[in-house]
């Protein structure tokens, strides 16, 4: 034993430098800006050329748009539905009959939606992990490919190589089906989504009803997974999911009924068109419905703060505890897809869908919708990085004691407003402006009043900091302090 520090202690770093190699590496890691400064000259030139081409193309587009030559033609790329209609007309002219156009256009649209979703699944988990890392002062996956972009691919490859186990005592058939079944509603729900005025795969007049019913089907697959796993954690997770989904269907439906009342249509395309026509987002008119929809959706798709169906710290992975390999991967992929789906629905119902106050004339509307759906997805990531988890009884209480009564009141209020809007022919901005103000005020008032009725107090008066003991002792000292306050 010597008086000196260990010989193996690394040479002391200069003052102000972090001591450990890992800390030094983290700090020495360059920022994106520094990376950009190191780009080689040919690459810079190529970038400049690409930028110029982009600007020229945009100018050309602007010219055509102003000229009005583009509107509704098959080459109007702002609405891919036009091209489809042209193709359909061409095919109908042939002698093959209507079935050909039906199948061809159906196939193209289906492949389009599936490739959009598939592309998102490829990038979505990377986005989520990198963003969560930002929230958590980490770096996140950055090793596979540029900025770690290929990480989801690597994950999928790893999952595919893993053994797919079936637990002893599991119901084989029921255990096999859910990872596939859970995909079906997640895909089908994209059908009636309006991407542009004429661009909707399944333009049905009961689109909203269709979305609500299709999304509630996923509970069946989850229950099958939990039941067939022969595992208590899975069963608990499945029971929680079923209880939660059944409860939260109601506030979701009530919050969407409000949208129907005001717009007068169940067709998703018409709901969006209504918002574009009146230059208003329904979220501004119906703040409470938007909140209800968003919060209930977190419960429906198992995201924080309502991810109790797969609460990691309590029931490990919930209903998919026993699934391994790519089967578990499918469940995770569906979760990602559902988050984007809810983002897109939120955008469609409350954030103006593909419209953006006239901007949709210039930018392809489907890109606007994708951006808004991405914003919804970001909100989910944000919540996941921020909030703790509710307990199941708290969650149920919140649905049945708060959301549902208040939603019913909201339906009544908006029904009155909708009849006012239908009867009196007033300038849109005045009537909808006053609705927005009245609804916001009523929401604040109703939430506070209802909390008082229910007997809920925020409990913020509870002493936040602990007390400090003036003397040391056992039970008597504890009693003395308790009695003294």
């Amino acid at each position, binding site marked *: 034993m010597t*008086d*000196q*520090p*260990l010989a*193996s*202690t690394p040479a*002391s*770093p200069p*003052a102000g430098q972090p*001591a*450990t190699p890992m*800390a030094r590496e983290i700090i020495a890691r360059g920022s994106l800006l520094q990376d950009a400064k190191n780009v080689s000259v040919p690459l810079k030139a190529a970038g400049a050329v690409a930028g110029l081409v982009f600007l020229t193309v945009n100018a050309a587009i602007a010219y055509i748009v102003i000229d009005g030559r583009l509107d509704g033609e098959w080459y109007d790329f702002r609405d891919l539905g036009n091209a489809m209609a042209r193709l359909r007309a061409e095919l109908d002219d042939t002698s093959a009959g209507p079935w050909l156009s039906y199948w061809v256009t159906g196939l193209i649209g289906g492949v389009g939606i599936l490739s959009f979703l598939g592309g998102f699944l490829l990038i979505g988990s990377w986005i989520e992990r990198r963003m*969560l890392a930002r929230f*958590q*002062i*980490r770096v996140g996956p950055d090793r596979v490919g540029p900025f770690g972009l290929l990480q989801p691919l690597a994950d999928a490859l790893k999952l595919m190589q893993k053994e797919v186990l079936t637990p002893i005592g599991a119901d084989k058939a029921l255990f096999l089906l859910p990872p596939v079944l859970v995909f079906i509603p997640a895909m089908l729900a994209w059908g009636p989504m309006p991407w542009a005025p004429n661009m909707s795969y399944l333009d049905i007049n009961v689109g909203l009803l269709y979305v609500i019913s299709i999304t509630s089907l996923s509970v069946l697959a989850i229950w099958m997974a939990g039941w067939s796993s022969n595992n*208590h*954690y899975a069963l*608990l997770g499945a029971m*929680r999911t079923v209880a939660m989904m059944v409860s939260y269907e109601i506030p979701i439906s009530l919050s969407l009924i409000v949208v129907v009342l005001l717009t007068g249509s169940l067709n998703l395309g018409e709901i969006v068109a209504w918002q574009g026509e009146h230059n208003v987002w329904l979220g501004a008119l119906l703040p409470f419905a938007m909140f209800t929809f968003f919060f209930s959706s977190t419960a429906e798709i198992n995201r*924080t*703060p309502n*991810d*109790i169906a797969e*609460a*990691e*710290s*309590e*029931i*490990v992975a919930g209903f998919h505890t026993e699934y391994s390999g790519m089967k578990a991967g499918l469940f995770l992929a569906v979760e990602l897809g559902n988050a984007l789906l809810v983002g897109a629905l939120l955008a469609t119902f409350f954030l103006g869908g593909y419209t953006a106050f006239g901007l949709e004339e210039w930018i392809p509307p489907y890109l606007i919708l994708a951006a808004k759906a991405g914003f919804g997805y970001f909100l989910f990531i944000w919540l996941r*990085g*921020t*909030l*703790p*988890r*509710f*307990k*199941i009884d708290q969650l149920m209480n919140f649905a049945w004691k708060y959301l549902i009564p208040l939603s019913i009141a909201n339906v009544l209020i908006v029904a009155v407003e909708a009849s006012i809007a239908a009867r009196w022919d007033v300038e849109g901005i005045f009537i909808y402006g006053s609705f927005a103000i009245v609804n916001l005020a009523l929401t604040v008032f109703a939430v506070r009043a209802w909390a008082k009725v229910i007997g809920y107090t925020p*409990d*913020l008066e*509870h*002493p*936040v*900091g*602990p*007390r*400090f*003991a*003036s*003397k*040391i*002792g*056992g*039970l008597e*000292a*504890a*009693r003395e*302090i*308790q009695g003294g*306050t």
Partner: protein
Amino acid sequence: MTNASEPYVLNIGPQHPSTHGVFRIRVVMDGERILDLDMIVGYLHRSMEKLAEERTYTQNIPFTDRADYLAAMSSNLGLCLAAERLADVEVPERASYLRVIFAELQRIASHAMANGTLVSDAGAWQTPLLYMFREREKILDLFEMTCGARLTTNYMRIGGVAFEPPPEFWPALQELVDELPDRISEYEELLTQNEIFIARTRGVGVITPEDAINGSLVGPALRGSGVPWDLRKAEPYCVYDRMEFDIPIGTTGDVYDRFMVRLAETRESVKILRQSIAGIPDGPHKTDIPLALRPEPGEVYGRVEGPRGEIGFYLVSDGGPAPYRFHIRAPSLINLSLLREMAQGVALSDAVVALGSMDIVVGEIDR
């Protein structure tokens, strides 16, 4: 058809995200409600106390690192204090100050870990944990530059400490001490007023002062129940009698109180660190002792206030170089014993949070 439900048995652990190690709870449940539970420990048993009877007192110090691997410095200190009392070894004043500094740093690091994992158990997906790891990293950096190890430090020696901290240690420590109060305020703002966190922790896992004392709880778990007991005040060792600090205690004894007590203790530790930095004298950092220390026959029970509570070392000497009997009184094991009372009749989610609030370290439970 009747709708009767019957209780079922659920094994939580040995591998489970919230058992904080290899530890198993056999729970009898009715739906989501816990009817009864058994705690099954021993998966990490390494027979430390028996092995220690074959080694000298100094050779036993690394065992204490591996008992409570989140508070190695405090465990080191406990054994060294006990052995010094047994062998009548004088400790230089500078060494005592260094011991206080490192024990308090360890307390901050351990409490950061405890509170972070508690919030993680409540469902906040690792964000608070990683924020608290930011401070823990800096403390572990300080450990690394002093003794080369981050977790199993093996730093304290009988008669002092192993090494003098390097010159760059002191500015780094000062910087840490300066920024810690802001960081703690950050956690207070983020968590203590969070509606969901309050709903999950208040009124959960309540332990009354009577139960706490009957269950012989120690540390923040005891103080969270409102019993003002802290060995640093009650039975000052090292130079704690010269330090000015307060003992935070809880009001109701629930999970929230234990969380707040840990957070407040971190503040108090910063106070102690400030005073130690100001008051540390020059001088030797240890006294030389024989390689094989042979204490007079006798027995001693030395104890310190570790992050998890009283860490006690019961040593019996028969005059030989190795202890005749070596026993660790592990705070985690004793705090854990009240889990059954806390978890009976509550939901699984509450039991997980209650377990998280006891801040167990399985290495210390099983030894």
